[in-house]
Each structure stands twice: as C-alpha cells, then as structure tokens.
C-alpha cells in the first residue's frame, strides 16, 4: 500500500506550475488547485518536475565486483540522482551473457526496490568478441533484454558486428557499441593530443572512436538495423552521426555528463580521478558534443557510472582503473553544462534523460508523460542552490567522482519510483517508501 501524495506547485518540465496527485503508483490527477484529504502534501514551489530519469548506461558491478558496488548500493545512488530506472551493463563476473545471469540481476534490482534495474545483455560470450551470446534467450527471459553491449570492449570484428546487428532484429533489440578500435588504442591512457604529448602518457586518438562509428553506421544501414553508440566523445563522432541520420540510418547516440563538461587538461597533475574510457577530450570536442546534444544529433545523456575502489584510483595514473561514478551528479552537471548555458530547456532535459533513453531501451513504464494515468515515476528538482559536491553527496559504495570539491548547481529534492518515495525532502531513504 503506497502513500497518497499531493505535490503542490511543481513546474512541469520547467513550465507552468501544476499540482500532481499520486495514488496507487500512478498519477491520479494533474491540474491546478487539487485537493485530497489524507494525502501527504509535498510543497514543490519553485521545483522542476521531470519524469523519472532513465540511465541507459550504468555499471552496477554485481555479480562479481561487490567491493566497488552492488545492485542495492548502485540503485540507491541512482535514486539519489533522480533516476527511476537504470540499465545495467553486463561486464560483471560472470559476464551477463546468459538468461540466468540477467534474471539474477533483475531479481536483485526488484529486491533492492529503489529503481527499476533493467539488465543489458552481452553481445558475445564473455564479451570476448568471438561468438554471439544467446541473445534470444536473454530477450525471452524474465529480464526481457532488448539492449545488448560488450561495453568495456569494442565489438571489433566487423563480421560479428554485422551478425549481431542483423540477429537482434528478430526481437526489436539494439546493439550498443563501445566504439574503440583496440589496435589503435593499445596501452592508451588519455586523449591523444597536445596534453598527452607533454605528459608522456600513451594517446587514445579520436580516430579510434570515429572509425568504428563510421563503420557501424554503414553496417546498420546495410542490414537495416538499429544501432546505439555509447559514450560518444569527439567532434568527429558527432559529425558522423549527423551525416548518418541525414542518410536515414536508424542510429542513436549517448553522451556522458563528464564529456559535456571536462577536458583532457585535467590530466595534468596525473590525478586519476580524471581517468576514464573514452578519455576526456579537448575543448573543441566538449563544444561539439554540447551542440550535438542540443540539436538532437546526440539523443540522450547516459552516465556510464563506473565505480572503483580507492586503491584503484589513488595510485600512479597508468596503474589506475578507468571510470567515474556519475549517478548522483548527472542532473546537476547537465544543468551546469546545458541548461544554465541556454542550450537545453527542462523539457529537453526530460527528453534526453528520460523519454528517449526509455524508448531506446524499450522500457514501457518509464519516460512516460507526466499526465493522469501514467506511472508516478518522477523527480522534483531544485535548480536554485549552488553547493560544493562532496563525498556526502555520494551514496554508492565508491567515491571516484571527478567533481569532489567542485561547485555544482541544483539538488534533487524528491524521487518517486512507481509512486514509492526513494528520496524525501533531499534525503535518500534507507528503505524505499519508509520515512521516519
């Protein structure tokens, strides 16, 4: 039995203030001057109401790497960031390449209860790039997998990529490619450019991402498949996607919050908090991906939340792991980089962080409009404050964030998942729906 909430005066996707009545897990009514006896009133004056955020790219690390994160701790971090659904990448141990593992992940997410955890299945067995995994079995399983990825690794063999693209058409699946030519990036540590030349760190050239994307959009066109490009990071990649969409290729692309804000200059000083794959790029690339997100060439924001234990980051750069946690900071960074700069409206934010990722992942109960009868999965966000991001803002098991000590705007005030409160009045609850 869920609580009845009356949300008063929320600015719907940044627009006019409305009241929302939440009952039985759905939006019972949306309008002005609503009233309801027995309802818990939430004063949302000045807050922006967005559909619950959907992250198409999260690493929950369970099974196998529970020292970094578990489905429970990752779900809590997601709820704290205003998310109501996350897609869990399969680079776990064992790899999520069978129906059994994806169903286990689904169950763990349901038990945790903070967000909807939708497993992503691996494209190839063990993500080794040699043989297709049982994609059909994963699609038919209770986890109803539709997104497949070898993320962490590139599906490099063009023949395997072709087959995968073709095969998933049978169940409306999509291949999400981590575009990185392995031969051009052996031992790579950071973006190849002026900074890497100076720092003596092996370079990860932009062309290693762009050449794979170029190949994949042509393959997708040839076989008539959907393609999704993970964590797009370079100006050249944006140009290729723009060209491909003009040709009518059914391709979607995502960008991470950190690629919207941070550059490779941060590698100076060798602080591995800034080591990530794909690496932070140049100022020109940050500008290009911002424009790409603004004009729709890039369809969504996805966090690539990648937790790592302290010893994997507090060491010399070449020995450090790649990755940043990003669930708690995502909306705030998007506000800083895109809304406060006038490139996106809050309505656009709803599109790129909720509606479109849900659509790409074929997740039906998320990214839905905030209208009567729809699921009550939403976030109430205060865009006004500016606070220094600190470990107190992190709720997962790991603290490898590049924003520690940086001023970020905004604050998630309330998150509701199917009508159940997970974040109440700025505080992440210990248990969903239970407030003391």
């Amino acid at each position, binding site marked *: 039995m869920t609580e009845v909430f009356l949300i008063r005066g929320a600015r719907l996707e940044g627009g006019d203030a409305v009241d929302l009545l939440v009952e039985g897990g759905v939006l019972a009514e949306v309008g002005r001057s609503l009233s309801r006896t027995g309802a818990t009133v939430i004063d949302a004056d000045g807050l922006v109401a967005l559909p619950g955020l959907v992250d198409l790219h999260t690493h929950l690390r369970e099974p196998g790497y529970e020292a970094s994160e578990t489905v429970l701790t990752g779900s809590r971090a997601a709820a704290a960031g205003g998310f109501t659904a996350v897609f869990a990448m399969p680079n776990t141990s064992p790899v999520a390449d069978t129906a059994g593992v994806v169903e286990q992940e689904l169950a763990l997410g349901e038990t945790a209860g903070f967000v909807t955890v939708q497993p992503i299945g691996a494209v190839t067995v063990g993500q080794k790039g040699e043989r297709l995994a049982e994609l059909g079995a994963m699609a038919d399983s209770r986890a109803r997998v539709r997104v497949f990825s070898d993320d962490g690794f590139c599906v490099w063999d063009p023949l395997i990529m072709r087959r995968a693209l073709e095969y998933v058409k049978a169940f409306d699946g999509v291949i999400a490619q981590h575009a990185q030519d392995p031969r051009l990036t052996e031992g790579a540590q950071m973006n*190849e450019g002026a900074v890497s030349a100076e720092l*003596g*760190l092996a*370079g990860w050239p932009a062309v290693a991402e762009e050449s794979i994307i170029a190949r994949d959009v042509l393959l997708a066109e040839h076989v008539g498949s959907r393609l999704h490009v993970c964590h797009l990071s370079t100006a050249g990649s944006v140009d290729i996607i723009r060209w491909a969409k003009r040709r009518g290729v059914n391709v979607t692309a995502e960008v991470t919050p950190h690629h919207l804000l941070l550059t490779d200059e941060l590698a100076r000083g060798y602080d591995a908090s800034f080591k990530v794959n794909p690496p932070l790029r140049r100022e020109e690339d940050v500008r290009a991906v911002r424009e790409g997100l603004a004009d729709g060439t890039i369809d969504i924001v996805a966090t690539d939340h990648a937790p790592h234990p302290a010893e994997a980051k507090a*060491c*010399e*750069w070449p020995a450090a792991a790649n990755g940043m946690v990003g669930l708690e900071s995502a909306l705030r960074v998007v506000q800083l980089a895109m809304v406060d700069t006038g490139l996106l409206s809050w309505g656009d934010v709803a599109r790129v962080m909720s509606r479109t990722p849900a659509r790409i992942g074929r997740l039906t109960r998320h990214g839905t409009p905030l209208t009567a009868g729809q699921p009550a999965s939403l976030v109430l966000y205060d865009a006004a404050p500016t606070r220094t991001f600190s470990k107190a803002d992190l709720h997962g098991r790991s603290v490898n964030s590049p924003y520690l000590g940086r001023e970020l705007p905004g604050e998630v005030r309330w998150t509701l998942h199917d009508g159940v409160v997970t974040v109440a009045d700025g505080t992440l609850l210990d248990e969903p729906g239970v407030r003391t």
Partner: protein
Amino acid sequence: MRHLLETKNLARADALEILDVAEDMADTQQREVKKLPTLRGKTVVNLFFEDSTRTRISFEAAAKRLSADVLNFSAKGSSVSKGESLQDTAQTLQAMGADAVVIRHGASGAPRTLATSGWITAGVVNAGDGTHEHPTQALLDAFTIRKRTYGADSRGRDLTGVKVTIVGDILHSRVARSNVWLLNTLGAQVTLVAPPTLVPQDVSAWPVRVLFDLDDAIADEPDALMMLRIQLERMNAAYFPTEREYSRRWGLDARRLAALTADSMVMHPGPMNRGLEISAEAADSTRSTVLDQVTNGVSVRMAVLYLLLAGERGERNHDERGDAR
C-alpha cells in the same frame, strides 16, 4: 627546493642555480678528498622500479660524496613484484627515516603522485618516469654543453644562441622532453629529428623545430648533436621497418660525423647501441661528451641533493651574506 619532478616548470633562476652549485660540486671532485660532510645524517633512498644501474649508481655516488646514507630499493624480487602498491612501498621507506626519495618508475607521473599524495614528507627527485621526464639528465646535459662551450667561464651563463639537435625516439623519450623544456628555458634553440612515427602527434606547442631528415639538420650546423637510444622493441610495433633502415636514415655514422662543424659536440645519455643510432667512431671521437656526461651527472646530482636537503625544509632563501659567525 622541495622536490625536483620535471624541467617543464623549472624557472630559469632555479635551473642556473643548480648548474652553478654543480660547478662548486665539480670543483670538490678534483680534490684528493672528494667527500663533503654536508648531508651527514641524512638518508637518501633510491627507489628504482625500473632497472637502471647507471643512474642509480650516479645518485648513490652523489649522495655518498655528500656523506649522506644511501638505501637502495629495487623492484625486482621485492614486495613490489608481489603486488605491493606505490603507496605502501613509499610509506615503508618513510617509516625507515628517508629524507629524500629518488624514484625511477615506469609510469609517467608516478613521482608527482608520490610528491602530492600526502603519503610521505620526504623530498622527491624524479630519476625518470615512464616517457615523461628525466630532469637530472637534462640538467647534466645542459651542464655539459655549457662547460664545453664556456669552460672555466661557465658560472652564471645560460645557453642563449646555442643550437642543440636531438635525434631519435622523441615519442617515448623522457630525456628528449626534459631537454626540450630546459634548453628552451636556458635560451638554446632546439631541433628534433626523428622518423615521423616517433614524433608525438601534436607538438605544435613545443618550442622546437621538427625535421625528418638528419642530413638537413646537420647541414644547419648544430653546436650539440644529442643522439637518443633506440629501443628495438619499437620495431615490432611498426614504428620503423628494420634496424638497418633506422640506422641508415637516422644513425650518426662516420659520414655524418665528418660533416659536423669543428666545434660541434656529440652527446648520448647512454647506454649506447653502438652501430645503431651511433657509430663507434662517433662514440669514441674527441667530440663525444659521453664520459663527461657521466662525470657531470654526479656533480649535478650532488647539487640537486644539496639544494633539496641541506637547508631547513620549506622556503628557499637566496641570501648569501648576513650570516651569524
């Protein structure tokens, strides 16, 4: 000076100070008693994660000539090969009372991570980190060039107008990088020569001229020609087709040696691949500064250790007079 990590940020005044103190150190090495009591009671740890007998011995000699105690830690067969982290290794040494840590590591940036991490309070000297920097090598190279050029008149002088050409695997060379920054700071003109595959993709911001042809570079009459060691593993990663081709196009052979002007010096940081990047004639000629570089290395490292350890830990003070008697 709290640490010496790189030459990129080494100010001209500080660089000249190191070179001039090295002159004083070099003078003491001409005496019968080559030892000075200056760093008595200080402990210098050589923390070498990469094999390097020559550099380690040079630092060891420098520390011992100043009467410091030296502890040598080499990674092979140590706890590091069993997976001990840089943090734990460094803190163990600090707990044993290290005042300075001279670190050579295969990872670019490791000395900076060590110096800024808060794990240790000892001063850090970078003895070579990955492909990033090797500041004492550049300092001894600059000292050598200055000495050969100005002789007894070297003190206080920089290298304005001196033309230095560096030849070899620039992409992977920490010696090249450190020399580029330091030589530029001291006013020298730097030219780099390499096969295109061994030049970093973007050196547009570097204060250098880049050439692919060694004969053109030699025709330009450099005052110093610095040959870098070529690692044969690079051949397997397709940086150049064969040793033979590399040697023909970028090696300092007898013909090129003869084309150098009378006063030009030939340098090499060592160890040399005789017959590959440098011919035996070039290595053994009177132009060769290779052995001077080794000798000067001890003086320069004595100067660095002195400036790092002799004073109270903290701010530098250039006051030379007003001392209490």
